[in-house]
């Protein structure tokens, strides 16, 4: 059996040559940025005499580096667009190179330019920042950012190849690129939102769920998942899958299919259904929300629904018209509307069935293996502790409870919440809870009655796994700020004083039992001390009531700093 040569050096050099113009032009721009930014930083900071050193991120000092994300697909398009021009396709396929070889070699050329454009300007910038005393370029962050950019660039490039291989017109290629990149995740986000819209207490996107948590995909959740290795790896895996699909399509693609609307009429049907199906999300939402809120559809609702579905149909035919530019094919596409209707029904059915299935997962107390309280920044004020002490809620989520009382309260409250479908949220305490039972974990936003919440708090504090408040209060990274509050009077302290008062308060707190600590930390009794602490990169708040009897030293210290008048008023 003959060995297939997967890489051709001559073709590689030829491909690099084809990309030379765009590569060199972009390289010049990026290198200019790499030189000019450190130079301007040097000029603006040279007069500063103190030892303060700021750690800068590549993202901030070289924002143009993001261009590489777009340059990779543009370069890919330059090399692979020949498949959609009849004469170009014949020209390249007449070369004495196997298609596999051409595919891999071209990819290697794109990656070479991409890596060059990413690494060389970044390295130049890093080196030029070295002599600047007050600003250092953070290397680890820069590497993460470069990995993010590269992976997203490769993912978009893979989509470009697939689109080029299955369609033949410019509009078709662009539309398919967008469909490949965004539609799968958009469908998942939509279904998640629709399911949780129907069943508010379901938290489908918790627990790093591959389907429901969009931050896995860097393209979707860049703001959330930037610098997260799992997102880089997931997006890389997606890119590799797309590259493999693209490779198979490229090898199998017939040269004579160049300039065809799509490689098959069935595929064209699927492609025109997808944008229309995406648009039909809106009428489906209207349908679901009206039915949920009103239980029936009146005349105006039906008119809105009809208008929205007319738009969907227009989109369906418009795609066909824009890709084929033939009115005859638009007419031919009409029977495909039945498939679109079927897809709508399928989406509705799936949302309904999946939502009911998830909402029906109501474990009994004895079935529950463990319970964990989940901290969400977005759910500020929904903690088990006082609203102003989100730090303890954050620390609480590290603890997995296996406690009969907690299990019972959670099970009862969950059943209650499911039955009411979140109607009690306004009048009860809401907590996000991860429940593990029968080998699976579900995340739910559960409404607890006041009594239940109190019972839960006591059970949590009494549990052996629970932390000592005073201990975790000492585990901050930076003590950002301490304020004293009494009778509408705020008092901001200097760095030294605030550290002393905070430290003294924590030491005195440590002498008390955990229940009393909890009382002081969750009750509003003047004077109050509010501390802002930084922990693992984020800021949190802690409130503490200063009791003269239980915390005499802190009391005295505050008196000496603020004057006894402050305490006695």
């Amino acid at each position, binding site marked *: 059996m003959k060995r297939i*040569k997967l890489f051709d050096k*001559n*073709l590689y*050099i*030829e491909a690099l*040559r*084809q990309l030379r113009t765009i590569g060199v032009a972009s390289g010049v721009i990026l290198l200019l940025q790499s030189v000019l930014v450190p130079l301007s930083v040097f000029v603006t900071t040279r007069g500063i005499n103190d030892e303060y050193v700021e750690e800068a991120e590549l993202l901030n000092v070289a924002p143009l580096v993001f261009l590489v994300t777009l340059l990779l697909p543009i370069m890919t398009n330059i090399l692979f667009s020949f498949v959609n*021009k*009849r*004469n*170009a*396709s*014949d*020209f390249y*396929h*007449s*070369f*004495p*190179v*196997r*298609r596999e*070889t051409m595919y891999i070699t071209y990819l290697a050329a794109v990656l070479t330019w991409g890596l060059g454009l990413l690494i060389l300007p970044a390295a130049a910038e890093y080196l030029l920042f070295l002599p600047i005393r007050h600003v250092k370029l953070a290397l680890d962050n820069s590497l993460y950012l470069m990995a993010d950019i590269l992976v997203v660039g490769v993912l978009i490039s893979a989509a470009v190849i697939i689109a080029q291989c299955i369609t033949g017109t410019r509009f078709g290629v662009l539309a398919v690129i967008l469909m490949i990149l965004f539609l799968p995740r958009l469908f998942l986000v939509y279904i998640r939102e629709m399911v949780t819209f129907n069943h508010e207490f379901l938290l489908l996107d918790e627990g790093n769920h591959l389907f429901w948590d969009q931050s896995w995909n860097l393209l979707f959740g860049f703001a959330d998942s930037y610098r997260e290795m799992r997102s880089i790896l997931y997006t890389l895996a997606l890119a590799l899958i797309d590259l493999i699909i693209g490779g198979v399509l490229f090898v199998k693609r*017939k*040269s*004579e299919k160049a300039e065809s609307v799509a490689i098959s009429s069935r595929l064209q049907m699927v492609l025109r259904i997808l944008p229309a199906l995406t648009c039909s999300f809106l009428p489906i939402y209207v349908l679901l929300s009206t039915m949920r809120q009103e239980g029936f559809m009146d005349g105006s609702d039906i008119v809105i629904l009809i208008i929205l579905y007319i738009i969907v149909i227009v989109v369906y035919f418009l795609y066909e018209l824009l890709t084929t530019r033939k009115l005859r094919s638009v007419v031919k596409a009409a029977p495909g509307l039945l498939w679109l209707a079927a897809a709508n029904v399928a989406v509705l059915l799936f949302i309904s069935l999946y939502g009911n299935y998830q909402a029906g997962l109501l474990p009994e107390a004895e079935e529950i293996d463990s319970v964990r309280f989940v901290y969400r920044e977005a759910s500020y004020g929904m903690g088990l502790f006082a609203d102003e002490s989100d730090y303890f809620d954050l620390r609480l989520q590290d603890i997995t409870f296996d406690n009969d009382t907690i299990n019972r309260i959670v099970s009862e409250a969950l059943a209650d919440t499911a039955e009411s479908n979140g109607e009690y949220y306004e009048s009860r305490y809401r907590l996000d809870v991860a429940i593990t039972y029968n080998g699976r974990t579900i995340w739910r936003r559960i409404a607890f009655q006041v009594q239940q919440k109190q019972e839960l708090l006591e059970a949590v504090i009494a549990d052996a796994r629970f932390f000592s408040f005073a201990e975790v209060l000492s585990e901050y990274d930076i003590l950002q700020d301490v304020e004293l509050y009494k009778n509408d009077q705020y008092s901001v302290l200097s760095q030294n004083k605030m550290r002393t008062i905070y430290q003294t308060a924590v030491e005195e707190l440590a002498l008390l039992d955990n229940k009393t600590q909890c009382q002081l930390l969750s009750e509003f009794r003047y004077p109050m001390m509010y501390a802002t602490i930084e922990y693992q990169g984020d800021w949190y708040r802690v409130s503490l009531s200063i009791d003269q009897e239980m915390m005499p030293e802190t009391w005295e210290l505050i008196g000496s700093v603020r004057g006894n008048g402050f305490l006695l008023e």
Partner: protein
Amino acid sequence: MIEVKNARKCFDDFEALHEISFNIPDHCIFGMVGSNGAGKSTLMRMITGIYRADGGEICIDGEPVYENPQVKRKMVFVADDLYYMGNASMNRLALTYQAMYPSFDMEYFHELAKMFHLDERKSLTTFSKGMKRQAITILALSCRTEYILFDETFDGLDPVMRNLVKGLICRDIADRKATAVITSHSLRELEDTCDQLALLHKGGLVLQSDIGTLKTSLFKVQLAFAEEYSRENIEDYLSFSGTGDIPYAILHFSKSGSVANMIMRGDHQLVMELLGAKKPLILESLPLTLEEVFTYEMEALGYSFENVFGEDM
């Protein structure tokens, strides 16, 4: 040798080539003629491994050509619809060809470019249609491959350039013992260049022969007798061959007044002797153009032959 065995090609429901079989011997200039849509370009693309045959096989020197770089390295293809990489210059394209064909002769390329007075540094987009074709032909010839395939190459070339290109192809074949395959919808373009010809019609191979045999196989006879005569009379005059075999066939007979024109196949000398013995008023043998040869051969095969050669007929 290029072997085409039962090659079949369909584009969706349309069958462009229907189980074609023929061989192209080495060291010859092989012409393929046929009207638009006959399947010439499709066949060329199959021979060069651009298209995959839906049935049958195409082999070069005994090896299948599709996705076979070793075989494809032996051939270069000049398509009818030229591609010149955006606004690349000849020099830029030469680098591409050089990268793909190890046998590319850069010196020969420069020599040819000079001969054709083409600026190698100028973008091909600034060239006229004919100049573009010259440029790509030069690049293909510079590849120095064993097989060179030209699809409608003489389209857009003025007569001087056409002859120059033909001369170069002939020289290449003679000097390097290469093989050239040229397609055209015009038989006149090919008859003075090719050694062998094949006629394609509606996706089928109608005829294949070497030019010498084709040109001598048929002849045209013009004759007139003093008395009234018909086709049957002529057949009677020729019925005695002395061997028992029929040494001729009248493929076409037309009479205008007393003068008859006949297209015949067979022993030219014997036919002239037999007819001369009947003391005709006029007896003349006229040479046939290749187009006429093809036309009458086709008629004999029962093909409806209108417009096979397009407008050039």
